[in-house]
């Protein structure tokens, strides 16, 4: 009987549910995360606007890690495999997810991309998300960290305009800093803006072109990966419901 509005309609039933609408994605993400942690792969969800320099940062990261650690990538794009091709040319094993019209990657797409991709051999798996400062922010993929690339050509107020994305970031990479002498971009202004949308603002300045800041970014990754490895014994709940090739 309906007691919500007091109409007493005997055929009306009101139920309180409180279901997270993203619960299906969250379960798939938790599944991915378990696999990554179990195997010791450090997964990064790299987000940012189109043209923020995500692929260029990955190319520079691969050069810096060469011979030390194994880096692989899953690149999401609406059309084409161009980013994945660029990464392969840089020696990074890469799978492409062509989303068609979807503006973001979800945990299931990443899970499917893992099949047939030698991700177990990696130390770092970077998921290069679709270039977009809105939609990717709400989908957990199973990553260990969210990293947002923000280029100095984009404007200092981007964090205030896109607070959802920056709130979810564990690290912001301020990219293309070699261009700073040619721009009116004030780094202090973007740092101030980030402090108003990120409770724990962490920012690193990098240039894929000059290599500036890349060692610091790689050191950040190595530190976080070491922290994940240390935390593993307590976190892993081994499950064996299917195997990945």
């Amino acid at each position, binding site marked *: *009987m*309906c007691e*919500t509005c007091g109409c007493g309609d*005997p*055929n*009306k*039933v*009101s*139920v*309180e*549910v*409180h*279901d*997270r*609408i*993203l*619960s*299906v*994605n969250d379960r798939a993400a938790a599944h991915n995360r378990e696999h990554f942690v179990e195997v010791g792969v450090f997964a990064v969800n790299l987000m940012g606007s189109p043209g923020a320099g995500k692929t260029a940062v990955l190319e520079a990261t691969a050069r810096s890690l060469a011979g030390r650690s194994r880096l692989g990538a899953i690149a999401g794009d609406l059309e084409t495999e161009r980013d994945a091709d660029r990464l392969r040319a840089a020696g990074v094993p890469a799978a492409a997810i062509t989303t068609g019209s*979807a*503006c*973001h990657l*979800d945990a299931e797409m990443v899970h499917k991309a893992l099949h047939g991709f030698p991700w177990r051999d990696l130390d770092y798996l970077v998921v290069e998300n679709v270039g977009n400062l*809105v*939609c990717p*922010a*709400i*989908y957990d993929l199973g990553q260990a960290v969210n990293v947002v690339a923000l280029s100095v050509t984009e404007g200092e107020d981007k964090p205030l305009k896109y*607070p*959802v*994305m920056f*709130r979810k970031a564990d690290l912001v990479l301020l990219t293309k800093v070699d261009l700073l002498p040619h721009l009116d971009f004030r780094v202090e202004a973007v740092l*101030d803006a980030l*402090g*108003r*949308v*990120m*409770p*724990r603002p962490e920012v690193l300045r990098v240039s894929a072109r000059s290599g500036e800041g890349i060692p610091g970014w790689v050191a950040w990754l190595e530190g976080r990966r070491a922290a994940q490895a240390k935390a593993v014994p307590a976190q892993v709940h081994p499950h064996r419901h299917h195997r990945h090739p």
Partner: protein
Amino acid sequence: MHEYSLVRAMADQVEHHARTHNAASVRRVAVRIGALSGVEPELFATAFTLCQEGVLAEAELEIRRSEAVWACPKCSAAIPAGAVLRCPGCQVPARLVTGDEIVLEQIEMEVAEVEREVPDV
């Protein structure tokens, strides 16, 4: 527009509850969407109209909004919107209290036969 895929996911959840309760149709669906959830309520409502079929054909959508509320996790002092997200007193990062919800909260259904005290599923 990710709102469409969210509405699709919500429709699946509503249909599941409708089946569980043996409902003929759904009259009303209430969702909570936070200001920092990354979901645009207007787009969500538009996407909902595109998913209205089956038990949802006649359903009304109620969107309950919640503001972004930040507070200090130690002393509970409110951190006003737009301020630096750090407690000036305790010097610790602020915590989001409300504002990131994307939640299906309530469903009102029309049942074929009289049903009493339906437990939540």
